[in-house]
């Protein structure tokens, strides 16, 4: 019962956030000093062309009416056309968003798998060389600049060992000679749906290095958070009780202590997922990854407002959904969360 009420409350709150952001985006578009009609009309427009653009963009209608029209358009996935390329934004997003989501989801999973178990083991073996090694690793992964880490990975795994591709989403012999049918835009999923395991492995091998680069920071933080939370929990009375009941060490660590300790790490990893959606520009550039970050950066530089608005809303939506998933996971792990 608590859980149902809690879920409803979170969903409502999320919807509220999305509507709020839509409103904000609209307001910002009104106050930015550049004239959308002039931008839309193309380079060095005449007064006539601008006037025509004003009519096309319907800029003279009253504000509330324009907001309603804007919100409905956004709500139905009609993001309009880019001022610059004149392409349909929804078409661009269909390519860039899955590429970014694939990378962000995969790196989030890596961060979970790398950060949390190492934190648990470091706490269980506090003061041992394993713990020290883990601390060193987490400090390095947090402190090392992203571009440097990316290039280091490329140097080791691509140049020296030749194990993984340097950049891109797929090898050229696949993407050019024998492309995947576009279904979801997620290469891993499309390859599975087309029953092409070789392509799946190729896509996976392209994903590893950029995902590892993105995962380094959240994994390092999650490791520290898990370690300190675990140390606190392991001293609790119910852990002594579990040991006195004869439970095995792994069951106590992962089954009894971790669910009490994992909350902060989950929160940080969830936040970094949101960051990876548009903040991963550097990683996308280094690994030639056709993602949302680069798309939006270019739009910002050319004041391509409809693209910025559409990307902002899509990212907000992804973020809100991810947050919801994390919050609900937390309540499954720790039912007391739903009571607060």
């Amino acid at each position, binding site marked *: 019962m608590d859980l149902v009420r809690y879920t409803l409350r979170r969903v409502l709150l999320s919807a509220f956030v999305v509507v709020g952001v839509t409103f904000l985006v609209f307001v910002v578009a009104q106050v930015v000093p550049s004239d959308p009609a002039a931008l839309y009309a193309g380079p060095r427009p005449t007064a006539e062309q601008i006037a025509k653009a004003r009519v096309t963009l319907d800029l003279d209608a009253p504000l509330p009416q324009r907001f309603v029209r804007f919100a409905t358009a956004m709500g139905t996935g009609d993001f309009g056309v880019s001022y610059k390329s004149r392409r349909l934004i929804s078409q661009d997003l269909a390519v860039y968003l899955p590429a970014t989501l694939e990378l962000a989801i995969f790196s989030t999973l890596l961060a979970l798998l790398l950060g949390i178990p190492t934190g648990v083991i470091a706490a269980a073996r506090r003061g041992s060389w394993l713990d020290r090694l883990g601390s060193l690793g987490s400090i390095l992964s947090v402190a090392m600049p992203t571009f440097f880490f990316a290039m280091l990975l490329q140097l080791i795994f691509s140049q020296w060992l030749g194990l993984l591709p340097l950049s891109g989403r797929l090898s050229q012999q696949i993407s050019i000679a024998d492309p995947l049918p576009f279904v979801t835009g997620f290469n891993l999923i499309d390859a599975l749906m087309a029953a092409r395991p070789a392509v799946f492995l190729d896509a996976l091998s392209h994903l590893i290095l950029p995902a590892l680069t993105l995962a380094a920071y959240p994994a390092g933080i999650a490791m520290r958070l898990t370690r300190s939370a675990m140390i606190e929990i392991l001293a*609790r009375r119910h852990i002594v009780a579990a040991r006195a*009941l*004869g*439970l095995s060490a792994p069951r106590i660590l992962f089954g*009894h202590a971790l669910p009490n300790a994992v909350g902060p790490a989950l929160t940080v990893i969830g936040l970094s997922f949101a960051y990876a959606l548009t903040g991963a520009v550097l990683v996308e550039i280094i690994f030639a990854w056709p993602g949302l970050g680069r798309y939006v950066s270019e739009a910002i530089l050319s004041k391509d407002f409809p693209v910025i608005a559409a990307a902002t809303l899509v990212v907000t939506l992804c973020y809100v959904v991810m947050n919801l998933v994390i919050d609900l996971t937390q309540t499954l792990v*720790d039912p*007391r969360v739903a009571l607060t």
Partner: protein
Amino acid sequence: MTLLDIQGLSVTIPSPAGPVQAVRRIDLNIAKGEIHGLIGESGCGKTMTGMALLGLAPAGAQVAARVFQFDGIDLAKSADALRGRRIALISQDPAAALNPVLTIGRQMDDVLRTHTLQPKADRTAAAVALLAATGLPDAAKLLKRYPHQLSGGMQQRVVIAQALATGADFLIADEPTTALDVTVGAQVLALLRQLVADRGLTVLMITHDMDVVAAVCDRATVLYAGLSVETGPASAILTRPRHPYTAALLAALPDAAPHGQRLAAIDGQVPASTKPISGCAFSPRCPAAMTLCHTVPPPARVRGDHRWACHVAEDAP
């Protein structure tokens, strides 16, 4: 038949302020089927004695004993193997002893799964039976509940059911009723007593409450500053204490106060556990202390199955 035989147990814990003598020298002899009280003021080493039996003394602690045997098995070597198999713990605060984020069912099942090879359905049935055996109504429904949804008394019954689930025949109950209100505490004691009778268990009942000793214990051992100072049948300890410390503990009971005048707890302080003891540990507080008591350790005295350590030779029959 003796189940637990401990002589000269000591537990020393390193600390920044020097080694802490949590247990200095304790003798404990418990027969099969007996409920044996372990009494003493806070800090006298009751919990640490129990932890040493479970092989759960703090990291770095030194546990030593002349004799340290459970059912003929050397605890110094085998405490880890016996813990949660033949020896189980019921701890003071059931709310803290249960994991707040796991259901009762999951916590019962984790114990059963550790100790049996039964399939899941059988384990669930076993969990329900054990919970019911501790007097919990609607045991099947309880499996899906979380500890915070239960009252303190119910939580303590779950903890007891977990201890039973291990199949252990020796329970260490560390102040099992302290966190409960008086009536609920009395019910839990009655339950333990009944389980001991029905299942042939043996219990080490740690308490600072003479009423608990009176209610359920067959025999008792009195600790002072990490030393066992007196041991004997519970009735003898309660009605005819031989050691002045036991006598003082009994006199400090509110019931013994004349005309409802509540006696203060015993005057003075327990000696610091970081300092060595010269003579009798109780001498700074003992009303019967003699000069000798401050320098010479008291001799062991025996009368029948009643033993104590004191310089005063109590010769009354």
